[in-house]
């Protein structure tokens, strides 16, 4: 097993660029799509109604309630142009009581903006509905002061009695992209099994006194270590250099990441069981992997995907479980006990996929 680890490491040492490029890629993707924490994404707003400036003013103050986005009034022409040229992902066209998004693609950031805007508009709709039925006085301030001091208050508290931090999409995207890249790295490493089988190196190992379990362990462990290396480097970088919010319980987060990595390696092994050549793997794997975060809702606010079929499919892959567990550790201070179910799920997926995968590989070589 040690010799397999050593020889795989030698290969990567000879061409470290590959791994480094991947790591750089995941960092870049996170920065690009999630943005820095201290510079909230600016979203252009404009109106083309008759009383445009009035509408713009009203919604500007309502939309800018937290600092995840900065809504800015912009000339309609310019906003449209910016979106068209790709300078901005999205702009919001405002109406008296409604809005339209102006976007050219379905980037994760667009749906995040939409969720925020939708929430604000719905609340306003409710308030004005109440105002209409009551038909008197300053309903808004009444409702607001009522909400601020309601008879029944739902107070969410963390274990350390501090206010629960607000959900941060940047953090979620950080993990989504990091894991996306992890899946590529570990897949390419697992594919070395097929590579070495085709080249005949595998047969040399079979004929040697090395045990078959050691052989498999070598490949699996190497993929695991190199993937964990990538995850840890990226996490530490974002925590200490970019000051991203990754919670205080870094050990538990890494443990969940480790379960995820193992589980996903097993799925890669399962796919390896279905292919004959490394080229087939290269054809299948990279087209499958980007779908997993999409199905698992890793780019969207939790709860966005409601289709039961998609939810079921997502549960078959470890990503959904890992994301859920990590987000609850970071934002809701969940402990080991709380994420145990997710860990067990990933372990189960891992054990089953690994078992079936290795069986298929072995049957293939008969």
């Amino acid at each position: 097993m040690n010799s397999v680890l050593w020889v795989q490491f030698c290969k990567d040492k000879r061409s470290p660029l590959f791994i480094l490029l991947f790591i750089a890629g995941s960092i870049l993707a996170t920065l690009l799509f999630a943005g820095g924490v201290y510079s909230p994404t600016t979203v252009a707003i404009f109106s083309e109604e008759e009383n445009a400036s009035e509408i713009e003013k009203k919604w500007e103050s309502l939309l800018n309630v937290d600092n995840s986005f900065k809504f800015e009034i912009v000339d309609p022409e310019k906003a449209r142009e910016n979106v068209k040229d790709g300078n901005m992902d999205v702009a919001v066209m405002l109406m008296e009581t409604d809005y339209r998004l102006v976007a050219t693609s379905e980037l994760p950031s667009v749906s995040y903006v939409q969720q925020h805007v939708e929430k604000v508009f719905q609340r306003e709709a409710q308030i004005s509905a109440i105002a209409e039925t009551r038909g008197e006085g300053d309903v808004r301030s009444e409702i607001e002061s009522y909400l601020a001091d309601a008879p029944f208050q739902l107070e969410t508290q963390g274990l350390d009695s501090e206010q629960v931090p607000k959900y941060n999409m940047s953090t979620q995207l950080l993990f989504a992209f990091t894991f996306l890249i992890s899946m590529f790295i570990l897949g390419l490493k697992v594919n070395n099994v097929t590579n070495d089988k085709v080249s005949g190196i595998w047969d040399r190992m079979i004929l040697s006194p090395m045990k078959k379990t050691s052989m498999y362990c070598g490949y699996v462990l190497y993929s695991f270590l190199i993937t964990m290396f990538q995850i840890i480097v990226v996490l530490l970088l974002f925590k200490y250099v970019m000051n991203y919010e990754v919670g205080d319980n870094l050990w538990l987060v890494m443990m969940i990441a480790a379960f995820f990595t193992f589980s996903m390696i097993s799925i890669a092994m399962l796919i390896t069981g279905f292919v004959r050549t490394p080229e087939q793997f290269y054809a299948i794997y990279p087209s499958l992997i980007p779908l997993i975060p999409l199905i698992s809702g890793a780019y969207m606010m939790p709860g966005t995907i409601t289709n039961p079929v998609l939810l079921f499919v997502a549960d078959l892959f470890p990503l959904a479980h890992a994301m859920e567990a990590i987000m609850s550790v970071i934002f809701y201070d969940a402990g080991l006990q709380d994420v145990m179910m997710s860990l067990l799920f990933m372990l189960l997926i891992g054990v089953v996929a690994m078992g079936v995968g290795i069986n298929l590989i072995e049957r293939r070589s008969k």
Partner: protein
Amino acid sequence: MLETINLSKSFKGKKVVQDVNLYLNNGESVGLLGPNGAGKSTTISMISTLIKPTSGEIKLNGVNTIDKPGEIRRISGVVPQELALYQELSAYENLKFFGAIYKMTGKELEKGIQQALEFVGLEARQKDLVKTYSGGMKRRLNIAAALLHQPKILILDEPTVGIDPQSRNHILETVRMLNQKDGTTILYTSHYMEEVEQLCDRLYIMDHGKIIAAGTKAELLSILSTEDTIKVELNKLDETFVEQVKTIEGVRKVEASHLQLKIIATKGSNLISKLVHLAEQHHLQLINFHTETPSLEDVFLQLTGRTLRN
């Protein structure tokens, strides 16, 4: 020391190796000769325990190797037909890995690596990446990787495919040294008749999954001892002429290529005068002809009706 008994293998119902019986005595050098797709690699994979036979037995000193592959794996080295090497690593690193999987470590491993490199003449280039090697050097390293654990039996599967004559001679010389100096038992697969003729004490000829002839070179040639091989060159060649040559009494086999005819006929069948006569009838001129001493190629042609290499 090693023998196979009615060794057979089918892939999806297609018989690829059928009832192969062969044996290797200690210190012998044995060739397994056959055209592409004859089943040589499949036979070798069964002997080296990489694949299980569909039926039949393999015995090493009387012990069935199919149930107990440990011993044969320990004492044999296999040089696969493909280049089973890490192209991205140096020769030294490759050998270090292939030695390590045989549980070699430290000084023993280092000594083994240098010995193997020296044997195939690659010690000067050991730090270079394999992908920068020539085809012949890669082949040599492919052999070195099988020598690290000093096997008693060396099984080589077409170790000279696609390389220049110089590297080829180097490899043949290496194998001969292993056999004659170290007493390594050799099983050598090839579809080059000359190699096996040069290198092996005994050989098996295989075609379509079956052994069609076996013995020493002399024994195999004696198959042809009652025959003559005649090569005739004409100014023109036509089909009907070739057909009629085939009907001449005593002619066993005729092969036409370009303007040449290769004819195998029973000794003393007075072929030449008949040929001259026939050529005259067809208004053809005999430009050249000579009688050849038979080669193993001819044995193969005689046995299968085909030449070895296409």
